C-alpha cells in the first residue's frame, strides 16, 4: 500500500495496456501466446493450488475470518517495509507471520473468543496501515494505494517474483503436509487431540503460519480480495461434495485452478464489452466464477444427501 507499490502498479498497468490491446484482437491462439497471460496462468495456478490445500483446513477449522484478516494485515508490512527500506514481499510475509502469532496469543480456545481476538488484531492492523500510509504517502496522487492492493491484477505481475512465490508456496504446502495428521485430528476434535498427546498449540501456530504464507503470497501477487476468494470458495465447495479430506483437497485444487483459468479467459475476452476502453478486472471475473461454483455445489448437497440417505452435518 505504499507509494512504491502504487507507482509500480501504475507503471506496470500502463505497460500492460499494449498487451491487452493486442489481446482484444482475440482468438485462443493469441490468448495462449501472450506473455502476460502465460505468466498469469502459471502464477494463478500456483497460488490456487496452495490456497486450496491450506483452504480446506481453514474451512474445517472455521478460520475464514483469520484468513481474510491475514491478507489485509500483510498490507501493514507492505507499507512499513517502504518506511524502513526492505523489500515489499518480505514486509508482507513478516507482517503476516507476526500477525498470525499475535492472533494465537490473544485468542482463546472457543471459536467465539477467536472471533473477537481476530477482530481486535485486525482492527489494530488496519489502523497501523492507515498510519503508515499517511506517513509514507504524502506524495500527490497516492490515493490509488488502497485500490491497487485490494484489487491487484494478475496481468501486471513482474516475472521476477515467480521463484520467490514458488519457494514460499512450497513452504506453506510442506507445513500442511508435514503436520497433516495433527491438523486432521485437532481440527475434528480437540479432546481427541488432547488424549493422543498432539501438541495442539504448536499445530495451531504452525497452521496459522502456513495460512499467513499462502494468503500473503496471493495478496501480494493477485490482490487481497482474490486471495480470500481462492482460499475459501474452492475448499468450501469441495467440502460440500465430499467429506474425505484428501479427496476434498484434490477437488478444491481442481476447482481453484479451473476457476482461475476460466476467470482469466473471461477477463481477456471482456475487452470492450461495456465501455469499450477496458477489460474487466481479472479479480472480478475469477471471484464471480468461484462464487457461482460455490452456489452450484449447494445444488449437489441435497442430491448427495438423498443418495447417502444419511443425516449429515451441513457444511
Amino acid at each position: 500500500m505504499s507509494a512504491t507499490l502504487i507507482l509500480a502498479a501504475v507503471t506496470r498497468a500502463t505497460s500492460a495496456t499494449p498487451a491487452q490491446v493486442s489481446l482484444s484482437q482475440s482468438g485462443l491462439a493469441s490468448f495462449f501466446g501472450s506473455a502476460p497471460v502465460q505468466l498469469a496462468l502459471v502464477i494463478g495456478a500456483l497460488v490456487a493450488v496452495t490456497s486450496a490445500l491450506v483452504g480446506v483446513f481453514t474451512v474445517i477449522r472455521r478460520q475464514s475470518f483469520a484468513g481474510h484478516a491475514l491478507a489485509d494485515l500483510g498490507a501493514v508490512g507492505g507499507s512499513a517495509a517502504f518506511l524502513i527500506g526492505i523489500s515489499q514481499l518480505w514486509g508482507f510475509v513478516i507482517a503476516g507471520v507476526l500477525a498470525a502469532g499475535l492472533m494465537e496469543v490473544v485468542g482463546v480456545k472457543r471459536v467465539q473468543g477467536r472471533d473477537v481476538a481476530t477482530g481486535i488484531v485486525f482492527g489494530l492492523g488496519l489502523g497501523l496501515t492507515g498510519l503508515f500510509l499517511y506517513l509514507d504517502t504524502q506524495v500527490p496522487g497516492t490515493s490509488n494505494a488502497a485500490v491497487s492492493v485490494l484489487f491487484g491484477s494478475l496481468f501486471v505481475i513482474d516475472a521476477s517474483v515467480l521463484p520467490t512465490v514458488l519457494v514460499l508456496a512450497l513452504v506453506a504446502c510442506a507445513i500442511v503436509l508435514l503436520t497433516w495428521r495433527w491438523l486432521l485430528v485437532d481440527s475434528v476434535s480437540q479432546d481427541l487431540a488432547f488424549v493422543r498427546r498432539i501438541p495442539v498449540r504448536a499445530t495451531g501456530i504452525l497452521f496459522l503460519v502456513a495460512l499467513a504464507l499462502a494468503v500473503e503470497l496471493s495478496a501480494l501477487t493477485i490482490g487481497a480480495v482474490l486471495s480470500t476468494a481462492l482460499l475459501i470458495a474452492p475448499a468450501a465447495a469441495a467440502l460440500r461434495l465430499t467429506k474425505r479430506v484428501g479427496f476434498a483437497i484434490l477437488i478444491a485444487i481442481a476447482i481453484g485452478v479451473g476457476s482461475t483459468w476460466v476467470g482469466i479467459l473471461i477477463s481477456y475476452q471482456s475487452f470492450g464489452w461495456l465501455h469499450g476502453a477496458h477489460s474487466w478486472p481479472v479479480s472480478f471475473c475469477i471471484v464471480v466464477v468461484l462464487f457461482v461454483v460455490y452456489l452450484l455445489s449447494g445444488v449437489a448437497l441435497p442430491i448427495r444427501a438423498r443418495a447417502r440417505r444419511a443425516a449429515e452435518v451441513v457444511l
Partner: protein
Amino acid sequence: MFSDFLVNTWITASVVAVVAGLVGFFVVLRGSSFLAHALPHGAFAGAAGATLLGIDPILGMGIFAVGGAVAVTTLGRRGRSDVVIALSLVLMLAFGALFLSLGNEYSAEVFALLFGQILGVSSVEVGPIIVLGVICVAAIVVAYRRLLLSSVLPDMAAARGISQFGMSLFFALVVAIATAMSVPIVGALLLFSLLVGPPAAARSFSADPLVAIPLSIGFALVTVWVSIAAAYYSSLPVGFFVTLGSAILYGIGRGWFAIRVRRVATA
C-alpha cells in the same frame, strides 16, 4: 478544537460512537465480528457503483449493506456462515473493483470511504446520520430481550418461538444501517474497530448486559473523543487513534479480567 467547522464532527462522531457501542455489544456477544467487518467493507462497492451512476454514495452503500446483510443471512441458512460471509464480502469487493475500473477518476473519494473523513462533515449530512442512528438504537431497544436470548441461548429462544433466522436477519440489517450511516464519515476501517474493541473490553468488566452496554457506549465515546482531539493536535489520521484506543481498552479489559479470575481462584 471546538471551532465551528468541527462542531458537526463532534456531533456525528458521538452519534456513531453511541450506535457502535450498543450494536457492537451484540456483535461481540453473537461472535459476528466477521459480519461487522464484511458489511462496511462490502458497502464501499455500493459507493463506487453509486458514483459511477451519479447517485448519492450513501444510498449506494445502504443498498449494498442491506443486500449483503440479506444475502449473508439467507445463504447462511444452508451453508456455513463464516464461509458465506467471506464469499459475500469478496464478491461485493470484486464488484467494487469492476465499478472502479469502469469509472475513472474518483479514487480519492474511495480512499476517504475506506479510511474516513471525520474532519470534513457538512451540516447537510448531520440530519440523516442522527435519524439513522435513532432507528438503530430504537430497533435494538425494542427487540432487546429477544435479541439477547437468541444470542446467548439460541435453543431456548427457539423453544420460545423466536425464529433464529429472523433474529439473524434483523441483527444483520441493524448492522447494515449502522454501516450506511457511519462509513461515509468515519470510514470502514474505523467503524469495524469501534464495533469490536470497546464492547469486548466492556464485556471483560461485567457479565451483566445492563452494566456492560452503558460501559461499552462510554468506552466508544471516550475512544472517539480522545481520537478526534489527538488527530486534531497531531494531524495524524483519526482512524489510527481509534483502532489503537480500541486495542488498548481491550488489553486493559483482558488484564482486569485475568486479575479478577486469579483473585476468585485464591479466595
